[in-house]
């Protein structure tokens, strides 16, 4: 009898010692003469429980974690029942039970490279349905689902697709934007490592919808594990699914430039140029990669597509709020007790996510602020924790939802230092094309330093500078860098009072 165990090889699990646990499991099994089938899955997203080992008991997956290698012997001793690290059924863990897993339904469940398992868990049925539809019918279905761009801009995906569909060209392109550079976000990485076929299926459906013959995944080079898994996944998918579909998928690596997450900089990079931002128009949907009509969508936008096609638009649109339909993959990180990925319908409040689901800070101290939407997102103090995750509501609260990453800071955080860092980050990562971002970010650092040093003339100057950057920058890097700065200043003015010493 073979023993089947499930252990993630998601980067977070690896970073917390999954390989050492895997090695010990193999040694124990071999020592005891037990046939072992160790399935390496993606992660369930409960990062505080990683490495999280699972075993199937009468069809129910039960878990053990966070495991260390020395826990493994007793697991075998007790035949994977009683154990100090036993968690019971995974589906009953509150963090997991409260989610609505649509895009991440298979993540952490199956071997990401096992196409049969993918199919057995509902994979490829969306593509099968799409193949029986006309391109316009597919586009209509996506419009009806209410799916909006998950990269942060929130533009309706179906409208973008329709623009490309209606543009005549001999060759069109689908680009998956996998340049997930925002601090506090890791949902794209988890999806690509845990269920890459969902992305590939979504790209293929998008290709059929707009008449594209080529797909590219532009992956940030920092994601080496996702790179390995995607390479293998593309090979399997190309050999078994794309054989008689006129669509090919290529993987391309970025080279460490944050700004390449901006779609026009990404296209320049893909073409082999410096990753500088292009003015719009022309829209990439009309003239993108090498001048061809190009749909650039975030990984999660594309990965949501197979489910929408398989289950129909009304089912997806039933989740969420009036204008933010479907589910959002919230990433809870930073100084938080229960951090990880939480997929749920739009409309959940910030407070519920960080205090209730996230369990407050890891240090046990009070929360001072959370940053929502990456390094260019605003800081929210606890007073604004009733803000619901919804594109319009986050904007109305003075921030942005972005890629739905939440970074928690406890009361030891120095908001002036974090504001300064936002400008420093913008200065480091600016592509240099437009002046407000290139010069503004550097002046921003200096002006914040002057404020911290107690210069009373610095504050109005900073406000003016932020306005210039916001209104005058070519893209969101310079345009949104004022968000963290101004929100920190607005909600925590005392931190800028000059009592503290400048960072670094």
């Amino acid at each position, binding site marked *: 009898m073979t023993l089947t165990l499930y252990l993630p090889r998601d*980067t*977070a699990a*690896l*970073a*917390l010692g999954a390989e050492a646990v895997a090695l010990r499991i193999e040694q124990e099994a071999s020592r005891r003469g037990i046939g072992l089938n160790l399935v390496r899955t993606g992660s369930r997203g409960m*990062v*505080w429980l*990683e490495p999280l080992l699972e075993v199937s008991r009468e069809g129910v997956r039960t878990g053990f974690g966070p495991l260390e290698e020395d826990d493994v012997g007793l697991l075998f001793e007790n035949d994977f029942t009683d154990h100090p690290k036993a968690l019971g059924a995974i589906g009953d863990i509150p963090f997991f039970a409260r989610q609505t897993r649509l895009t991440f339904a298979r993540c952490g469940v199956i071997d990401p490279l096992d196409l049969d398992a993918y199919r057995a868990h509902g994979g490829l049925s969306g593509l099968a349905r799409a193949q029986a539809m006309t391109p316009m019918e597919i586009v209509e279905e996506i419009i009806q689902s209410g799916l909006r761009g998950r990269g942060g801009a929130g533009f309706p995906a179906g409208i973008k697709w329709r623009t490309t569909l209606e543009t005549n060209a001999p060759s069109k392109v689908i680009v998956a934007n996998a340049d*997930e*550079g*925002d*601090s*506090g*976000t*890791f949902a794209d*990485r*988890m999806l690509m490592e845990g269920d890459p076929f969902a992305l590939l299926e979504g790209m293929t459906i998008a290709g059929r919808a707009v008449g594209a013959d080529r797909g590219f995944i532009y992956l940030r*080079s*920092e*994601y*080496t*594990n996702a790179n390995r898994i995607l390479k293998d996944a593309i090979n399997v998918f190309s050999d078994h699914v794309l054989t008689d579909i006129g669509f090919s998928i290529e993987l*391309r*690596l*970025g*080279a*460490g*430039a944050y700004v390449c997450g901006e779609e026009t900089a990404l296209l320049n*990079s*893909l*073409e*082999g*140029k*410096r*990753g*500088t931002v292009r003015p719009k128009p022309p829209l990439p949907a009309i003239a993108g*990669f090498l001048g061809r009509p190009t749909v650039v969508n975030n990984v999660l936008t594309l990965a949501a597509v197979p489910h929408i096609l398989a289950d129909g638009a009304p089912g997806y649109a039933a989740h969420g709020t009036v204008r933010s339909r479907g589910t959002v993959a919230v*990433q809870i*990180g*930073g*100084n*938080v007790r229960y*951090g*990880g990925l939480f997929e749920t319908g739009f409309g959940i409040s910030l407070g519920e996510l960080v205090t209730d689901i996230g369990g407050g800070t*890891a240090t046990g101290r009070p929360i001072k602020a959370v*940053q929502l939407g990456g*390094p260019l997102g605003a800081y929210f103090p606890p007073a604004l924790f009733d803000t619901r995750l919804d594109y319009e509501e986050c904007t109305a609260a003075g921030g942005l939802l972005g890629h739905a*990453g939440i*970074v*928690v*800071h*406890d009361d030891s*955080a120095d908001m002036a*230092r*974090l504001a300064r*860092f936002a400008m420093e*980050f913008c200065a*480091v*990562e600016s592509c240099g094309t437009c002046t407000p971002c290139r010069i503004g970010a550097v002046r921003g650092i200096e002006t914040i330093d002057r404020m911290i040093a107690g210069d009373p003339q610095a504050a109005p100057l900073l406000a003016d500078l932020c306005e210039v950057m916001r209104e005058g920058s070519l893209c969101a890097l310079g345009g949104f860098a004022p968000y963290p700065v101004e929100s920190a200043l607005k909600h925590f003015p005392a931190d800028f009072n000059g009592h503290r010493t400048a960072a*670094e």
Partner: protein
Amino acid sequence: MTDPVPRARQIAEAHRHLDGPVLPVLHAVQAEFGHIPAETLPEIAHVLDLSRAELHGVVTFYPDFRTAPAGRYLLRVCRGEACQAMGGAELGEALRRALSVDWHETTADGVVTLEPVYCLGLCSCAPAATINGVPRGRAGAEALLAELEK
């Protein structure tokens, strides 16, 4: 060791058929030599039909491409906000002090290169670092330094 120039030519020629071959070529050259040797640039530019200035612009734009080899260990430490919330700035500070280097520098003995990285996607187990690509979550300076000494 292989002569970089003819090898870079081979690599460039092997990728020439791609749409947008420049980054794949540079990644491949760096994978082979640990950096982009300066003498390979005219050759790559020639094969890909670029001016040397254009190629220089690309190489210097992207932080990944190095013009000199890194140390035996490439230690990358995340400076993102999620890691800062868990002591990432102090971790970076401690490593710079212990190794007597600043960001982007290599230790005097040539063993360790310290680089900042802006997010490794390990924001729920911060602070994060990688040693030669191997990820480490909830990373402490002592544990990282101990690994380097092994």
